[in-house]
Each structure stands twice: as C-alpha cells, then as structure tokens.
C-alpha cells in the first residue's frame, strides 16, 4: 500500500483531502520508495529535523542522484538569480535574513507590523464593502487574493497596479514548488527561469528608483541598507525582494481561504468568533495546525549520513518534511482531525520551526486574524455553494482556487 503513496499525495484528485493519505504515510515514518525523496511525516521527527544542523536547505548540497523532482527548479533558479535566504544555510542565510529583518521587525523595527493594523483593516473593510452580488461570491478572487497582495505591495513599495504583471510570474514560480508529475521538466524549468528573470528585471527597475528617491517602504530601506552588516549586493537584494513579494502573498491567500472554508464547515466556531473576536488569535493558530498553507518542505538534504527513526538517510538525499502530516500526528495532538480553536496545546508546525521558520509569520497571523474576524462579523448567514471547492494544482502551497459562498447580506 505504501508504494505509490507519494504519487497519490501529489495527484490532483487528493488535493481536497490529503489527510487520510498522510495518516497512511505515518505508518512508515521515514518513507522511501527507492528512487524518490525520503519523506518524514511524524511530528517529533519533523520537529527535530527542523533544528538539526546536519540538514542543509541549500540545493547545491543535493547529490545528483537524489531523485528529487524539485531539484531541477533549484538549478534553473541559480542561472537567473542567486538563491534567496530560504534556500541558503548559515552564515549567508543568517546575514541576509538579519538584514531583511531590520526594516520589518524587532529589535530595530518593533512596531512595523502592528503599525499596519489600521491599513489592514481599511483594506479588509473596502473589499467586503465591494463584494457585490451576495448570492455568489468568489472569496478567493474577491477577497483572499487581493487583500494580501495589496498589503505586500504597500509594505514593499511595489505599485499595486503592476499586480497583473507580477501575478503571472508569481504563479509560475509558486508552481515550480509543486512536484507536478505531469509537467514536462524541461519546459517547466524554462518557464521558471524566464519568470525569475522577468521578475528580477522588474524589481531591479523598482529598486533603482528607490535608491534615487527612498521612501518608507521596505524596498527602499533594503536598498539603502544600514546596520553593522554590509549592504546586500544588488543580486541578493533582487532575490530577497522576489522572495518577500511571492511568499508574502501566495501563502496568506491559502491561509485565509482555508480559514473561511473551515469556519463554514464548523458553523458553531464561526458563531463564536462573531461573538468573541478575541477568539481569532487561537483560532488562527489552530488553523495553521489543521490546514497549513505550506503542506510540506521539499528542500532539505543531510550533509552527512543521518539516522532518523532507525533508517539511515544517506548524505545528499532529498528529504521532504510533511508539516501538514506532523500537525495531524495523534502521538502529538489529541483528536488531531478535530478543528478545535480552544485547544490549549498547540505547538504546530504550520509556520515551520528553527532558523527557517516563517519570516512573515507576524504579518500573516495579523492578516488572517483581521480577515476572518471581519468576515465572520459582516457576512450575514454565510454558506458554502460548493464543498469541496476546486483546489489549486499545487500540493505544496495547497488551497482552494475558488471559494464560492453566498450570504443574506453584508452588515455595516
């Protein structure tokens, strides 16, 4: 049974509910079918490996024979832009992440994210005001996508009206993370490469402008640079900006959409959230456990032979850490398949852990909390028109492509 389970997980028909497959996978905590990646699916193993300094995130440490369908994407990337800090190890990772963090979070910019609260609320209100025909709303196109995109544009200083341009590149690059078994690898590699090039050129233009005329946005602050580290090189800056732009919205769309879908499937929780907006904080944590927007981390490789659960994983192998599976591991969470925002013990893997834990986590949390609270408060009697909804192709960045809902009206 275990054989072929990876292709089942990657198969589009499993997208709406991959969790039974993960349960199957956990019976073989270190799964390897002979040629593909080593797949790790239990909570404690994943948690340990995320803190294991013998594991590299740098695709250059993958052995040529690692058999990773995603490795080719990594090579294409190198020819266009250097890897972003997501795909680097310390010390380069630490240096770039630290410099990126200066304009974003504590200790240098402690109020940046919280200071965005007002702006976030305005965007949410505006989008809900304009939902239009309440008998058929596509919550993805009309809300869950435009909200984080508008926000990341403001934060970075990318013109919102350029969205149609970078949307295409972002889509292609997000798809490059997807081990789509049907795609022609050469064709995909070419498209990924072209998109990175075009996105890079576009960002280079913006950064050039910001250097001449810096504003308060993050691109300006990264371009100007400050602090004890040297400034980023132009190429590093482009990689970092591309990472922030794409990771800054591709995942939040899914978090918000998965959130609303889960709430509509759990109307009692939705009702509680309406009464008790403070519930949004634990609710989003439970959501990150229950339906994490990043289902798996496909880019780890051991620098030496390591042993996990009695299995020796050879140096240079491709390893996949299935975060979404660890989050539903009954050895870690009671009733893991139950959505329970009142759960006390909620150390989930939804945002990763260790040095690569989600950079944008504070913003993503705040966005999802505000979005779900306002949707719960303002939509009158909301209901799903289609369950399950159609999903995006991507098995890694998993979420509905559309979420059709109806409601009786919009409260003020």
């Amino acid at each position, binding site marked *: 049974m275990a054989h072929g389970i990876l292709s089942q997980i990657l198969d589009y028909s499993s997208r709406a509910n991959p969790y039974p497959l993960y349960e199957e996978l956990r019976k073989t905590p270190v799964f390897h079918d002979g040629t593909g990646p080593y797949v790790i699916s239990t909570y404690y193993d994943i948690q*340990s490996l995320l803190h294991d*300094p013998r594991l590299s995130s740098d695709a250059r440490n993958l052995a040529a024979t690692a058999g990773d369908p995603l490795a080719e994407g990594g090579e294409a990337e190198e020819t266009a832009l250097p890897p972003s800090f997501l795909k680097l190890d310390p010390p380069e990772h630490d240096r770039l992440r630290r410099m990126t963090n200066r304009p974003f979070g504590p200790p240098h910019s402690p109020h940046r994210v919280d200071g965005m609260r007002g702006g976030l609320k305005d965007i949410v209100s505006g989008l809900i005001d304009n939902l239009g025909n309440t008998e058929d709303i596509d919550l993805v196109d009309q809300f869950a996508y435009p909200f984080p995109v508008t926000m990341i544009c403001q934060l970075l200083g990318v013109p919102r009206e350029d969205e149609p341009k970078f949307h295409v590149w972002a889509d292609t690059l997000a798809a490059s993370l997807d081990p789509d078994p049907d795609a022609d690898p050469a064709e995909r590699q070419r498209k990924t490469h072209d998109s990175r090039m075009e996105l890079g050129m576009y960002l280079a233009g913006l950064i050039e402008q910001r250097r001449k005329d810096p504003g308060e946005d993050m691109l300006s602050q990264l371009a100007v640079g400050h602090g004890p580290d040297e400034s980023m090189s132009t190429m590093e800056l482009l990689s970092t900006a591309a990472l922030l732009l794409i990771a800054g919205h591709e995942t939040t769309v899914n978090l918000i959409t998965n959130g609303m879908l889960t709430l509509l499937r759990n109307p009692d929780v939705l009702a509680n959230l309406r009464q008790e907006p403070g519930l949004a904080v634990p609710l989003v944590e439970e959501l990150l456990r229950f339906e994490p927007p990043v289902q798996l981390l496909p880019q780890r490789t051991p620098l030496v032979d390591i042993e996990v659960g009695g299995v020796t994983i050879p140096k240079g192998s491709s390893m996949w850490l299935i975060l979404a599976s660890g989050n539903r591991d009954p050895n870690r969470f009671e009733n893991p398949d139950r959505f329970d925002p009142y759960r006390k013990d909620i150390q989930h893997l939804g945002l990763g852990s260790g040095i690569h834990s989600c950079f944008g986590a504070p913003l993503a949390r705040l966005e999802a909390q505000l979005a779900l609270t306002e949707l719960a408060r303002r939509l009158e009697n909301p209901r799903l028109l289609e369950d399950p909804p159609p999903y995006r192709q991507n098995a890694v960045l998993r979420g509905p492509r559309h979420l059709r809902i109806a409601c009786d009206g919009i409260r003020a």
Partner: protein
Amino acid sequence: MVDTALDQLRRSGRIVVVGASLAGLRAAEVMRQKGFAGSLTLVGDERHEPYDRPPLSKQVLLGKADADHTLLPRRLDIDAEWRLGVAATGLDMAARTVKLADGEEVPYDRLLIATGVRARPWPNEAEGELDGVFTLRTREDGAGLARALAAGPRRVLVIGAGFTGSEIASACRERGLDVTVAERGDGPLVGALGGVIGAVAAELHRENGVDLRTGIMVTGLEGDSTGRVRAAHLSDGTTLECDVVVVSLGAQRNTEWLTGSGLGAGPRGIACDAGCRAFDLRGIVTDDIYVAGDVARSPHALFGYQFLSLEHWGNAVAQAETAAHNMLSESTDRRPHLWVPAFWSSQFGVNIKSVGVPSMGSEIMFTQGSRAERRFTAVYGYQGRVIGAVTFDNGRWLQFYEKQIEACAPFPPPFTTVDRRPDGQRPIPADFPDPSVPTHGPTITLSGYSPADRRIATFTPAGH
C-alpha cells in the same frame, strides 16, 4: 473502591507550600489541576503575590517596565490561603507543623518547600547599608536600583560579573552610564561557562564601554558624611569613585529556618531524591516533605547522579510540577525530575542561551558560527560525551544539542554541520577555574560533594 489515605489527602488534606514565588505558585496550580480539593496554604516572607524576576535585571533597569508590574500570570484560581509577609521560622517534622514568624503554627499533611535563594549580601554589613549600595533579587531591589540609575549617577560599580552582574552592566551602558565591573575571576561568566566563553564575554563588556577589571577584589566601600557611598577600594590598591554600587555575588539558599528540624538542609540547599522528596539529616527520604526550585538539590542520572542545585527559571517550573504531581500520587505513579538544565540571558544586545551542565565540561568546541563574530554554538565535552552547549545569538539550534546531551552523544561531535568554521574543527580546553578557588558562583552548583574535598570526589572537575 477502597478509600485510601491518598484519596483522603486529595479530598480533604492540608497542603502547605512554603515559598510564594515561581515554584510555589506553579506547584499550587498543578495540585489544583490534579483535583486536590483540600486546604492549600501558601507562605511567603515577601508581602507580594508571586512575581517574575527575569525582568528585574533587564527591562526594569532600563525603565521599560515597572518593577511593580511583573506579577506572574495565573493559570487558574488556586483558592489558597495566602500568608504573605510572614516568614516560616521553623519546622517540626514529628508534629507536622510549620512555625511562622508571627508565632502561629500551621499544620500540614504534605509540605512543599520552595523557599528559593536570596542575594548574597556584601560581607561588611555597615558598608552594605550605605545609601547607594544595592543587591538585586527582589522587586524592591529592582525598583530601588532602577530609580538610582534613572537619577544619573556619575559611576556605577558592579561587583561580580556573573549573569546578573553582566546584565546590570549592560543596562547601565544602554542608559549611557559609566560603569565599572570588578570580578575576582579571569572574566565574566567564567564560573558558569568557562574561560574561553568568558573571554568572549569580556570583549562584549569592553566594546560596549564597560570598565571591566578582572582578577580583582573590592576590599571595602567608603561612604561620605551623609552615609552615602562615594568610593570603593580595590585589591590592586586603587580607589574608585562611584555613587552606586551593585553587589552581585550570587545567591544564598534560604534554609536557615530549617536548622535543627532534622531535615537534610544546609547552605547548599535541601537534598531530595529525583522525585523531589526531601531527605532527612540521616539520608533517609521523607514521604511527606517535598522540595522544588532554587532551594532544592537533587540527583540527576544524566550528570553522573550529581546533586544539582539550579537557579534556573525553567527548573523552578518543571520541578514544581513534578513535586506537585508526586505529592498527590501513589509511589508507583511518581515520576522523576530529570529536567535538562537550561537558561538564557540577554546582555549587550546578545542573546545567550545554555543547556546541560557546561561547568562539568573540560573541553569546548565551536560547532557552528564564529567566535570572532560572537554568533555561535559551542559544545562542551566531558569524558568523551556532550555535556553542555551554549549559544550566542544562535539559540534556534539549541534544541538539537539538548537532544545530544540527553542521548550522551559522543564528543567531539563526529559529524559536520551547517556553518562549521575553520576554528570549529577541533576541541580546545574549556578553561574552567579550579573549583576549589572561589570565583563568582555558577548558576548550577554541583553539590554532591565539596569541590575542595578531594577525598570523596569520584568526579574530577574540569581540567583538574
């Protein structure tokens, strides 16, 4: 079902907790969580409800937090009788009563002792009472020192460069105050982390403008005619003008009240078994007296069954939870307190974390990052195994090294890691001071034997 003594205890027993700080509060909460319905009395010599101490040497001194606003959060209503502002003064083990300073005697069926430690005072009492001379342990200490720093003294002298002393010096520099640190040992933090890391810490002090003087003792403090400190005399014959002095010479365990009680209590703390049950003077374990937190010293299988006394926040919490569990459990359901020591500090903008017992280590190896950049993970080795680890701005890796310690993994680590640098290819001596020579105390005391008493030592301390 048989109505056992334990059932009666759970239903209507009397539990007394002496010590109303972190460990006492957490233990009380766990007892209630576990369904203890009897009477619960918390005795504390301070008049405050339990508060948190880590901010006192950090945010409070920077004026970013008020010493009065560090109350510990309550996880549930513990429905206890609070006897605050009254010290326990004695214990009658036969009569099962605790004597209080107000003359009252409180009877118990189970007793938990969590009286913690207090700051070691300046040995010369008259000098210690000079205006402007502080120790830092209590909320009042924190508030007073914060006020003194806010008043803009011309120079602050910190005596002792352990973690607290270093954090105080850091706060002074952040406030732009001139500060001198006098340390008897070779460098800051050497008692806890050894000379190699001590040298890194010394650079941190000096680069941040601290006038750090090592290998030196303060021989006396001098006041002016109004009783205010004005100068300190140092063992090199010099005199230092200063108007604030912070005595940061480690802690003393609060066990004096148990003198004559027959309990195995002394200056090193109260000996107990791994299940937190206190030993009496004859080395026999009691069944109704438990110990938790800084005042406890308990054997740890991972560290050669050394009796460890830990002044660690996390230990107070974990040990209190174990003690509370065991107090209400049948002997077969009891569990050992085998917490791996861990602590953190924040000074000069650097986040320092440690796990295990570095001070047992004889060698050290920089497995990740670089000493020169002061961003690293260093591992301590003892007789071919990993015994401790410390990180400077590298804390996210610590969990891995904690597991290495728990697994008695070999030292030096036989594998490579990300961010391994040329200077981390081989171990070097960790350079702990001779334990028979007093320095600033480490935060972990290996108290299974007297370090100076070589006759009964089966364990040879670092490098000697």
